[in-house]
């Protein structure tokens, strides 16, 4: 990464640290979502362990997306975004860097917390590893898809829920192959690598494509 992008990455981390808890709140939200499920479907550990990967994935999906609606909002409000548009660094790379910082701050703690929460759902070690690996491979796609929604709603006053409505349908492939590879890790007929490689492919496609869409959305805010 060149110096401007490193500077941007460092700034994002520093802001998150001083404001405190942006990423931490995402993990707490994740924790709450997971612990609500047993209330809804009952405390039967056999059932919980069977649907554990799905619970963890849906919780991860929601907590990743709900944290993302502010991705560009602060920069749009304080004028930083204008200066990014003007700078000689391509806006696509700015978007990618902001996504990388956001992923580091929110998705990484979530991936670290997922196996612990899996224990409370009575999941086996192999399934826990499968969930952690599939989240590691799949959350970049979630963050980048969310960035498109964040870009589209950056100028809007009440973009929060709209953004989720726009983006959640697009995340279905990620969810399907994420849960499939997490489940495949703990047995079943499908070998683990089949859905897992597709999941990696989805993330790579998102890295390649989403920054262009998000940057275009940001440029189109005013015209």
């Amino acid at each position: 990464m060149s110096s401007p992008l490193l500077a941007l990455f460092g700034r994002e981390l520093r802001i998150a640290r001083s404001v405190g808890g942006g990423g931490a709140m995402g993990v707490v939200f994740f924790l709450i979502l997971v612990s609500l499920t047993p209330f809804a479907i009952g405390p039967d550990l056999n059932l919980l362990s069977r649907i554990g990967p799905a619970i963890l994935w849906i919780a991860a999906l929601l907590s990743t997306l709900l944290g993302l609606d502010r991705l560009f909002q602060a920069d749009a409000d304080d004028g930083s975004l204008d200066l990014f548009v003007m700078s000689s660094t391509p806006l696509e790379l700015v978007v990618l860097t902001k996504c990388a910082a956001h992923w580091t701050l929110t998705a990484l703690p979530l991936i670290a917390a997922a196996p612990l929460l899996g224990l409370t759902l009575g999941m086996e070690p192999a399934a826990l590893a499968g969930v952690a690996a599939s989240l590691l491979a799949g959350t970049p796609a979630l963050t980048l898809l969310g960035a498109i929604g964040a870009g589209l709603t950056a100028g809007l006053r009440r973009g929060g829920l709209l953004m989720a409505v726009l983006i959640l349908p697009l995340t279905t492939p990620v969810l399907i192959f994420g849960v499939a590879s997490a489940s495949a890790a703990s047995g079943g007929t499908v070998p683990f690598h089949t859905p897992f490689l597709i999941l990696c492919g989805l993330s790579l496609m998102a890295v390649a494509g989403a920054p262009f869409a998000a940057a275009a959305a940001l440029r189109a805010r005013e015209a």
Partner: protein
Amino acid sequence: MPPVEARSPNTQALQGISAKGLRVDRGGRAIVRGVDFDLRAGEALLVLGRNGAGKSTLLRALAGFLPLREGEVQLDGGAEETSLAEQAHYVGHADGLKAALTALENLQFWARMLKCASATALSPEGALEQVGLARLGDFPVGYLSAGQKRRVALARLFVAPRPIWLLDEPATALDVGSQQKFAEAMAAHRAGGGFILAATHAPLGLVGAKELRLDARRARDVGGAA
């Protein structure tokens, strides 16, 4: 703020900016229309007009945030293959500062983000000195007053020298002393061959500046033709 030594922008110096027949639309309506101007190195353009006349719109279009519907801007000289926006600083209503970071951290970030190899670039510390805030470098921007924030934003102009300054009401919230110092900084920028395009209601102390008067009514009358 000590008197500023004249500093030249990039050495493949930009010689002139000329605009012909600019038209900018917003919401399907021509906000700015038929704007021509011609600036040589060291000249300043004051964009005048009532509220809603399109002063900010014109500057934002020049900065590249809005597309030009008609007309074109030509640059004479300057770095190859660079747009006006990449050679310009834009100071708008928002300061582009993060309240949680210190004044110095904010400037250090912009210095690296706007990467400028120019020898005339001031260090972030020097730029804060320039706007008289050297002693507040370690304070979070959230603790500063509106005028102080604006001065930190203006310090950005010095950490990454660029030949064109697009200033939208730059003197907002500045006290008289700071306005005076900023006028000196603008004079020094022009003396070094820089360009200034400023939209303003307040007198900025730009000596011998050209004036461009935008008329809200005229724009509105002909706007429907789009």
